[in-house]
């Protein structure tokens, strides 16, 4: 609680007690007046003075603000409305006192009291929500520990230059992106990825700022400045996310701009027209008091606060909850678009599959599987082609480079090299034709086939394939069950491979053999072809070479983007880990947030209109009016906080 909130709370308590005391003593007061034989005006003045004490205690700042508003020509604010309403009620009470009956001052004070209580509650609730959300996103490191002259020194992360060695002790956050140069440990990446299992790391591994070191000290050589590090980028992105306003928020701003003046003018009309009509046409008592009272209730209801507070808060909570689950949404508008998605287009490699190849089988080789892979790995030792990298990984052992010589890489064919004095050729069928080896086509059609020839004789082939991520199939199912109508896979791979992956995952629509520009074209056609239909198209890619597609789609989702600047730039939604299940989670969070937003809009506007109607008819008094103002707002704020509770699919 801030100082201001505490003082408001004290004022609320004091004036409540005073009001209760006055109310309890009012009978005694009245009989005392009669006993003393005070004339009616004097008694009325004494009552006014007494009741003004709690009124001033609770309302002085509102009154002051209202007058400042008038002075600065910004009169249309709620302080003024509250002033007019409560002062109006007090004047009515005084008028009744003067005419000999007993006026109800209690109401004027109680309304102000209610209003302040509501404001206080709102301020506390919003503050609490803000803190909750910030805590979820609390990944900002406080300091970095650097070694100077053999002594550890804590400095501001901003002051650490690229290439410095920093020390991260267990329990501390990694402050800056870098590479481990000493130590092994496990890292808690939950704040970044939502992934609950710790990640084991050792020398040579890249670490990303924002992770928490769990077990033992690490020395890290920084590769970026703090401002360029993952943690700064994410914080910047999330903090600015709510600046990109959604259509709902813009609607509310516009609505509020019209709503308040309309209600104020209606109030004036309500105060003037019925009494005048009664006088002129019905020739009855104009009942000015009644209608002015009803008009005052109108004024209390006119504040659009419930809407202007709860709608942005819902989005803010949704974005905060999502970021806690490892899903960064760049703006409220994207959350809104995401909730309307009915088509999800996937890029295959790196999104549904791991993007790294594994050896499926070795066929027709005179050598043992292990021997063949080792030979091939040696021949490919100098190549950085993804296939070579995967084969080297399959070999497991570090290649002994002294066994290889005369490496020759022939683009589009493969590699020729001398291994242990033998001429080894590794590549596709064209290379086999070149070296005169009689190759055999592979009957297994789901993977990429690498043929091998040794000294011109065919030595079998290795079938490798891209591995489907373990959660991909579940992700597709989740998407279907969450109402995504059309799921499409785009890939640059051959149709055999694409079909086989699609079949495994249960995707019916596949477009293979697309170059990056074809993918953009396809997405463009899909969006324009759909015309004015309602649904939105989301594209999910790994963000490495599909930036143009990410930006063309209605909403671009980049996966596994931890540390990839290009992806964070191009995408609208960034998934911190590369688990495709998060796409369904993200859509789920978006839908939930938008449902809450709609609930709040309907609830707040509905209750307000109902209360306006009831008070115009004189069925409800100012009490209900105050509920319509602050009660609805508090309920909406509480409802908005539900968006913070995010459900996450397992794994």
């Amino acid at each position, binding site marked *: 609680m801030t100082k201001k909130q505490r003082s408001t709370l004290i004022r609320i308590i004091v004036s409540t007690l005073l009001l209760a005391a006055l109310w309890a003593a009012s009978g005694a007061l009245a009989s005392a007046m009669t006993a003393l034989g005070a004339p009616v005006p004097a008694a009325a003045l004494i009552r006014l003075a007494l009741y003004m004490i709690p009124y001033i205690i609770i309302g002085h700042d509102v009154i002051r603000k209202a007058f400042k*508003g008038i002075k*600065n020509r910004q009169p249309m604010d*709620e302080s003024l409305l509250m002033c007019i309403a409560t002062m109006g009620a007090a004047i009515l009470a005084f008028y009744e006192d003067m005419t000999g009956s007993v006026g109800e001052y209690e109401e004027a004070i109680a309304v102000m009291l209610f209003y302040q209580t509501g404001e206080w509650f709102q301020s506390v609730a919003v503050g609490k929500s803000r803190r909750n959300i910030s805590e979820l996103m609390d990944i900002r490191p406080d300091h970095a520990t650097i070694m100077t002259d053999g002594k550890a020194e804590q400095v501001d992360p901003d002051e650490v230059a690229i290439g410095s060695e920093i020390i991260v002790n267990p329990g501390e956050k990694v402050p800056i992106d870098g590479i481990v140069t000493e130590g092994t440990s496990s890292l808690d990446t939950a704040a970044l990825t939502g992934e609950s299992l710790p990640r084991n790391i050792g020398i040579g591994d890249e670490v990303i700022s924002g992770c928490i070191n769990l077990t033992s000290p690490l020395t890290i050589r920084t590769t970026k400045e703090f401002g360029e590090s993952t943690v700064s980028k994410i914080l910047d992105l999330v*903090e*600015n996310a709510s600046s990109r306003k959604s259509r709902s928020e813009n609607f509310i701003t516009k609505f509020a701009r019209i709503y308040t003046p309309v209600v104020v003018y209606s109030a004036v009309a309500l105060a003037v027209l019925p009494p005048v009509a009664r006088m002129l046409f019905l020739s009855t008592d104009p009942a000015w008091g009644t209608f002015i009272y009803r008009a005052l209730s109108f004024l209390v209801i006119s504040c659009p606060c419930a809407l*202007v*507070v709860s709608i*942005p*808060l819902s989005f803010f909570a949704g974005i905060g909850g999502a970021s806690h689950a490892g899903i960064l949404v760049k703006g409220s508008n994207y959350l809104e678009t995401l909730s309307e998605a009915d088509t999800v287009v996937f890029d295959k490699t790196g999104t549904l599959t791991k993007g790294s190849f594994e050896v499926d089988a070795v066929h027709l080789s005179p050598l043992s599987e292990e021997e063949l892979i080792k030979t091939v790995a040696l021949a490919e030792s100098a190549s950085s082609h993804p296939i070579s990298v995967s084969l080297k990984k399959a070999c497991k052992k570090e290649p002994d480079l002294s066994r290889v010589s005369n490496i020759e890489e022939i683009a589009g064919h493969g590699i020729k090299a001398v291994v242990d004095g033998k001429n080894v050729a590794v590549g596709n069928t064209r290379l086999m034709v070149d070296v005169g080896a009689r190759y055999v086509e592979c009957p297994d059609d789901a993977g990429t086939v690498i043929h091998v020839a040794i000294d011109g004789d065919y030595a079998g082939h290795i079938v490798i394939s891209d591995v489907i991520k373990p959660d991909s199939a579940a992700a597709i199912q989740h998407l279907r069950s969450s109402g995504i109508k059309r799921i499409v896979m785009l890939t640059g791979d051959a149709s055999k491979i694409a079909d086989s992956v699609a079949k495994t995952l249960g995707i019916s629509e596949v477009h293979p053999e697309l170059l990056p520009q074809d993918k953009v074209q396809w997405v463009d056609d899909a969006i324009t072809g759909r015309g004015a239909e309602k649904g939105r198209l989301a594209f999910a890619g790994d963000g490495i070479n599909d930036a143009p597609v990410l930006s063309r789609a209605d909403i671009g989702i980049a996966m596994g983007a931890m540390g990839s600047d290009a992806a964070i730039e191009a995408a609208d939604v960034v998934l911190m880990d590369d688990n495709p299940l998060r796409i369904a989670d993200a859509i789920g969070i978006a839908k939930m947030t938008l449902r809450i937003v709609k609930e709040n809009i309907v609830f707040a506007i509905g209750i307000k209109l109902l209360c306006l109607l009831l008070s115009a008819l004189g069925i409800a008094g100012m009490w209900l009016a105050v509920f319509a103002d602050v009660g609805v707002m508090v309920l909406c704020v509480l409802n908005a906080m539900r968006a913070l509770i995010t459900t996450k699919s397992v794994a």
Partner: protein
Amino acid sequence: MKKSYKIEVDCANCAAKMEEATKKTEGVKDAVVNFMALKMNVEFEDGADPKEVMPRVITACKKVEDDCEIYL
């Protein structure tokens, strides 16, 4: 040039008013007030000096919403 400032304000409606007032201030190209993060992002006109513009922004904001604070 863009700069970000911490602010203190009580209600979302008031934050919206501050945003309007800041946008109209001379030397300011665009402004976004983020009530939730209690931050204000101001984009200045080319050649405008934030040190010279910001006091005007504060005066303008105080005028529409007495209860606000901008930390320079």
